[in-house]
């Protein structure tokens, strides 16, 4: 049948095809529709595949505005116990900007009594959503009352809620998130209300593509190691070794590792971004639980021996941020322009190569916050007044 109909058709290159009959005129369109139908229908097979491979899908997680069904990592409840029993004098929250700068043991030795505990709520490559959840679900939940909680950030990170919230980054959130995070989800929904995001979500939900990714992609990534050694856990252990070989410490100086300080390409505007940021949530919690928070803006990589260039919008943003934080009762410290933060202190991108040296500079700059408790009240007023 198909051969006969082909023979009757003119060559595709003929400039004027012969006038076809009604049914043969309709047929090419039907075939084109069939192709479109295939594109829409074949991916539905993922639903069957998911059912066959993983059975019932996991429930939608703590960020329904963003996430599709996927298995979640467990919440790190042991951190709460550690904070509760350790009752640290200072708590640091942040990503590699903090991790490559602060040496907690060295800072503990430099503290007033020389042995006070410094706790880290740290995960590399995280953003403000992670810091907020760590603050709420681990520090506040533990009931610990550190003298100061430091939150490290770059430039506009604090108000860029979506910074490192999606894809592989988002999975780090599992360890600090509870089963439901309505406040954070409300903020995410504000950022994800465009038509494109809705379209993406409809497609992903209809075809259940994300759950399929969660088992198919690791299967591809691990097949070779599993083939070499099928023992349970071997592939995961091998991947951990690979991650160590490619850890942040091994990055080249010229690659500009971790230069991405923000997901947004808009010009910074603090008052525009504040309502959809986690900052008000952090400040509400700190007030409700009597926790003093100090936000530390790290200096980005210097250019030669000069501090990095800052656009007028960024300078205004930081001034607005500082004013708002201080009005809310928080402390604010900015490394930018510090004469001791020279290029030789930096390793790759904005990471620092000498934690002890940075820690000592930091200790010196914020000395009042590390004085003995009996002097702390006066000291804090000194910092606040700067």
């Amino acid at each position: 049948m198909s051969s006969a109909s082909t023979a009757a058709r003119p060559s595709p290159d003929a400039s004027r095809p012969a006038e076809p009959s009604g049914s043969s005129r309709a047929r090419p369109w039907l075939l084109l529709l069939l192709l479109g139908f295939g594109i829409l229908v074949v991916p539905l097979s993922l639903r069957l595949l998911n059912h066959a491979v993983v059975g019932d899908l996991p429930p939608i997680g703590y960020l329904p505005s963003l996430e599709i069904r996927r298995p979640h990592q467990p919440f790190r409840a042991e951190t709460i116990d550690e904070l509760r029993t350790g009752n640290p004098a200072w708590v640091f929250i942040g990503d590699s900007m903090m991790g490559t700068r602060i040496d907690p043991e060295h800072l503990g030795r430099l503290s007033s009594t020389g042995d006070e505990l410094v706790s880290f709520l740290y995960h590399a490559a995280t953003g403000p959503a992670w810091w907020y959840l760590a603050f709420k679900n681990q520090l506040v939940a533990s009931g610990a009352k550190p003298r100061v909680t430091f939150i490290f950030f770059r430039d506009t990170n604090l108000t860029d809620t979506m910074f490192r919230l999606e894809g592989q980054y988002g999975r780090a959130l599992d360890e600090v998130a509870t089963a439901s995070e309505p406040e954070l989800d409300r903020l995410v929904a504000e950022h994800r209300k465009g038509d494109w995001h809705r379209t993406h979500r409809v497609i992903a939900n209809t075809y259940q593509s994300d759950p399929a990714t969660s088992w198919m992609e690791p299967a591809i990534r691990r097949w070779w190691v599993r083939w070499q050694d099928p023992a349970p856990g071997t592939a995961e252990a091998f991947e951990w070794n690979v991650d160590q070989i490619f850890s942040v410490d091994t990055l080249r100086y010229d690659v500009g590792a971790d230069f991405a300080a923000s997901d947004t390409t808009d010009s910074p505007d603090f008052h525009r971004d504040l309502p959809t940021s986690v900052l008000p949530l952090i400040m509400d919690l700190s007030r409700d639980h009597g926790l003093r928070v100090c936000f530390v803006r790290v200096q980005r990589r210097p250019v030669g021996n000069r501090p990095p260039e800052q656009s007028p919008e960024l300078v205004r943003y930081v001034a607005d941020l500082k004013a708002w934080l201080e009005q809310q009762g928080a402390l604010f410290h900015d490394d930018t322009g510090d004469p001791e933060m020279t290029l030789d202190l930096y390793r790759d991108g904005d990471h620092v190569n000498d934690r002890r040296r940075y820690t000592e500079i930091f200790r010196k700059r914020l000395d009042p916050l590390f004085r003995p408790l009996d002097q702390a009240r006066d000291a804090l007023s000194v910092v606040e007044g700067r």
Partner: protein
Amino acid sequence: MIFHSLDFLVFVAVVVSIYWRLSHRWQNIWLLGASYVFYGWVHPWFVILMLVSTTVDYWAAQRMEDDPARKKGYLYASLGVNLGMLGVFKYYNFFIENVREVLASVGLTVSPPILELVLPAGISFYTFQALSYTVEVYWGHMKARRNAVDFALFVAFFPHLVAGPIMRATNLLVQVERPRAWNIDRARDAVLLIAWGFFKKLVVADNVGVIANRVFSHQDPSFEMLWAGVFAFGLQIYADFSAYSDIARGTARWFGFELILNFNHPYIAHSPTDFWHRWHISLSTWFRDFVYIPLGGSRVGAFQRDANLLATFLISGLWHGASWNYVLWGLYHGTLVVVTRTVGTLLRLPAKWPGPLAIVQIVLTVSAAFVGWLFFRETNPDFLRRWLVLSPAESTLMERQVGVYLFVLAATWGAPLFLDDLWALGRERGWRLVRWAESRWEAMGPASVSRALLQATAAGAMVTLILVLRSRVSLDFIYFQF
């Protein structure tokens, strides 16, 4: 606007649906407007540069015809503007930095200004395309065009604007001028081509690109890790660039245009010369026709011919980027072509080795091409020097295992490319299975239901895999930077 975005899909749907309701003249005007919107989507000022190039070339070609006594001057004007734009935006800083270093080496310190300019996407592609027109008119191969819209559309036609194929005026401009007929069977084929392009980009190129980026971000990779990274990059650049070409060709078909094939399975090439007949064909033929042949081509003595070849490859390398590693890459390939030709002639080797030796020949050729990707990918000369003397003896057992793992992982993501290449090899070598399958396919005819069903299943399968396996790290098309 980038291809792998919903913006692009909606944009094409809107432009196509209106396009076919218009007369030929209005089709061209509509397509030209759409092309400028596409190109200026992120940086509208890019369009101004394109308008400058278009206006100068349009004017220069007409003047060549109207005032033949001074046609060389008009050619120089066209060359000057197009190459001048490239020079300022792409090569100025490179040139200045090298001058400064040379002067510093003799004790002179100068600080000429460095330009902080964004390189306009696709400038190397559309300037070369526009230049081909003025040169062809200068040579008398074609008449100067008198319709500004047609000519502007030839320069700006959006499906291939940013990363080729680089079309010749003798081909694309003629298609612009001719009325186009909607061909639904070709449109259906085009959907498959576009889906294959998206699949190669999002599933293959972006996933192997993550491996390559990881290795080339490492300050001290082992020998095995480095070459696994080079292997991954070789797959990435092929999948990425050929994907762009496929999407461009498929999209163009929906407007009734046929763009030339830009990649013809380069990783089954049987010699370096054959590789360049298959890789970025539109650029290779551009350099052949506008650089190599005007230099004398093969009509001169063997020594001069080889010198011409090396010069052509060197310029081709520099076209890719303002950095010495691209020059080295060009020289490396030029040397490969010259050496294999010379050895082949001296030893009287057949162009295609017989029987199972053919596989050896392909493996040797492709391995040499992959070594070349190290020069292409590593832009830092200090690191490049280190990588060239890396020894496997310095690797720990774990580093070896990781290198092998990365190699296998890259090969796994690249498996669809290998299957596609294997099929093409079978077609070229006349393997029975391939001949049988393709004859069945042809026998179905373009309008058969069974063929459409197979196409629907294949396109659906590719979309399924894109949904599930696309890399979560979205990388730009590599050739956007050129």
